[in-house]
């Protein structure tokens, strides 16, 4: 009879992030798989909004995971792994954007729709706006590009990273009040920009 031994750190179901990190430190590959599965989409959405380009966003996710796990000493459990990861991913995305030039990447966006994009139904509101999904993404990317970097990052971490005010504050080393204030002005600018192009 074969008995599989499960390390104590991963016996609970589902294991916490802290337990997975312990398993990862012990060399368990499946712990990395699970951490990746949990946070890959949030990381990707944040990176995509900051870069405006799908392939670059995947590169930023890759860089972010490597750096976040390599530099776990900087994490030290002071915040959740998700906030630490999104901090590193968003830094990686902004660095990548600076290297490659955001305007250049924005011009590429929309030229290579993913499978299913053309048939994915829009919400009734979007249909009423007469927008295709690709057009909407391009429009939103253009709108986001008008924001100062700190406002854009704050807005994206909250909206696409689904981080709370407190978590965004931790990621950016600012107060919760500053997060809320940045969100207010970011939304105001986005609304003004979009209102000239579509009926919000």
């Amino acid at each position, binding site marked *: 009879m074969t008995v599989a031994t499960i390390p104590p750190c991963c016996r609970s179901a589902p294991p916490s992030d802290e337990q997975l990190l312990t398993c990862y430190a012990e060399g368990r590959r499946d712990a990395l798989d699970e951490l990746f599965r949990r946070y890959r989409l949030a990381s*990707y959405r944040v990176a995509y909004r900051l870069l405006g380009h799908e392939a670059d*966003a995947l590169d930023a996710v890759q*860089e972010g995971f490597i750096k976040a796990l390599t530099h776990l000493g900087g994490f030290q459990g002071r915040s959740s792994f998700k906030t630490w990861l999104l901090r590193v991913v968003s830094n990686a995305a902004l660095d990548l954007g600076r290297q490659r030039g955001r305007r250049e990447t924005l011009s590429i966006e929309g030229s290579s729709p993913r499978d299913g994009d053309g048939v994915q139904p829009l919400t009734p509101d979007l249909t009423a706006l007469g927008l295709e*999904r690709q057009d909407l993404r391009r429009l939103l990317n253009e709108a986001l590009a008008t924001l100062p970097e700190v406002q854009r990052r704050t807005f994206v971490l909250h909206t696409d990273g689904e981080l709370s*005010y407190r978590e965004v504050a931790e990621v950016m080393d600012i107060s919760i009040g500053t997060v809320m*204030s940045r969100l*207010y002005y970011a939304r105001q600018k986005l609304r003004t920009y979009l209102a000239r192009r579509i009926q919000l």
Partner: protein
Amino acid sequence: MSENHGEQRPTPEHLTAYVDGELADGARRAVEHWLAGRPDEAAAIEAEQRLRQLMEAGAASEPSAAEWAMTLTRIEAGLSAGRKSVKPTARRVAGLLWAAAALAASAAAVWLVFAGNAPPVLPIDKIPHETAEVEPAFPVLLADEVDIMTMQATDTTALVVGLPPVHEPLVLAAASEITLDRVEPDVDGMMPDMRWFDGSSPPMIAVPLAPK
């Protein structure tokens, strides 16, 4: 948040929390009361609430399973390469040096001429035990291969100057032992802001250039 706004405009923080549905009942009613007589403001708030839906509808499509698998493979390869290049016990020491090397490399090409005798280099067997596990071949990276995760104020007192590749042992020198011959702009034309502080002598690690 629980404030009675009356005729006073709610703060940006209150309006943000209202848009996100994060206000407690009392504060929410106060904002609603304020909005009731201001159709323009109410329309703006509604537009911002619809903006949330719009962002959701325009979110990036999830990559395919194959793209995720490829990304995970690259992450594993990157983590594995990182483990091989730097031993865990050396990572803390090397990390600071890498960060400093990146700063120097990205700021400018700096050519150095030693004004006096360089301090003696410690033989490898005389290096204190704490650093003896650092791999003999000091890793030198290009600026774009390094990401500075954090930098403490105390880190800025150490400076690594030079350009890869390194063909000779690193030497420690005080600022007074180094003469700056010239500073050249970086590839992007940026000139570093050079400051020399009177009375201070930050430790420097001089990287000998490759022989021409």
